[in-house]
């Protein structure tokens, strides 16, 4: 569940011990905003929601890695911040099948994907203009 391929694995191992990726102990089952709800920040003056949604955890290095790539390619995206408690991330699980972040949903291509390594590779292939 925890990514280990990153150069910052040490950071994340610490991260896992302290705040995140705790074992499930769900105490929260209330209703939620439907995933298709119309809320969305207009990135420009247009009222359109960006086609890319990034599920992220504040200060998660893997998430920042993806942010950096999205920024490099000038891609508009909507951030959805989830809770540090792994068990509280049902919204992510409904979208991607797993509770890990980062996860992205790209409506341009219909792709939903977890794990920053996969996501970065996908963004390079799709938006990087390289083979």
């Amino acid at each position, binding site marked *: 569940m925890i990514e280990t391929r990153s150069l910052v694995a040490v950071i994340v191992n610490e991260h896992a011990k302290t705040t995140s990726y705790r074992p499930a102990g769900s105490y929260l089952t209330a209703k939620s905003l439907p995933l298709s709800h119309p*809320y969305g920040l207009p990135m420009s003056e247009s009222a359109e929601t960006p086609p890319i949604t990034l599920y992220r955890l504040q200060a998660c290095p893997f998430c920042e890695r993806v942010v950096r790539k999205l920024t490099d390619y000038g891609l508009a995206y909507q951030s*959805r*911040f989830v809770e540090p408690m792994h068990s509280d991330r049902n919204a992510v699980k409904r979208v991607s099948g797993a509770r890990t972040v980062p996860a992205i949903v790209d409506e341009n291509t219909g792709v939903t994907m977890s794990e920053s390594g996969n996501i970065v590779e996908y963004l390079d292939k799709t938006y990087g203009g390289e083979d």
Partner: protein
Amino acid sequence: MDLGFDIVDLPATDHPTEGDDAPDFTRPLVSDEYWEDVSLSSLADEDPVLLVFYPMDGAFPATYIWNELRDRDFEATYEVTVAGLSISTPYEHTTFIEERGIDTALFSDPQNGVAADYDVVNDLDGMASVAEPRPAVFLVDTDLTVLYSWVADEWPAFPPYDAVEEALAANCEMKPLES
């Protein structure tokens, strides 16, 4: 409230009232599962919004206000989206939503800029450099026209829930009954 003694009067303000344009804003909107930047105008895209300014999460008026709004469950009766706003952080909102058992999304505005735009700032005595919104309720139409407003003119104060409900009945479609 009739307590037999005077509480703090708040000065008159120039807040928007019926027929005025509600200032649009974008802030993190917190649900029980995540938060994301949302504008008032996008929230009001389909139905009017009942925007409830309330004291910071954890203050007893916040608890009372949301217990009452939870129990009245306006969204079950009217085609309206209820949204709260306080200066509390998204993390505090997440806890508050769970503790109060509400499914209302709450805007997080720690710098109190929205309250300033609406001219409903309440400078808190004894908390240096901390200000929050006065308790206030705005019913905002899909084009952001204010349909109803109530702003506290004393402190503490609580929304006039029956008057709010009358405003909803006068301005919002009824929801079809669920079978």
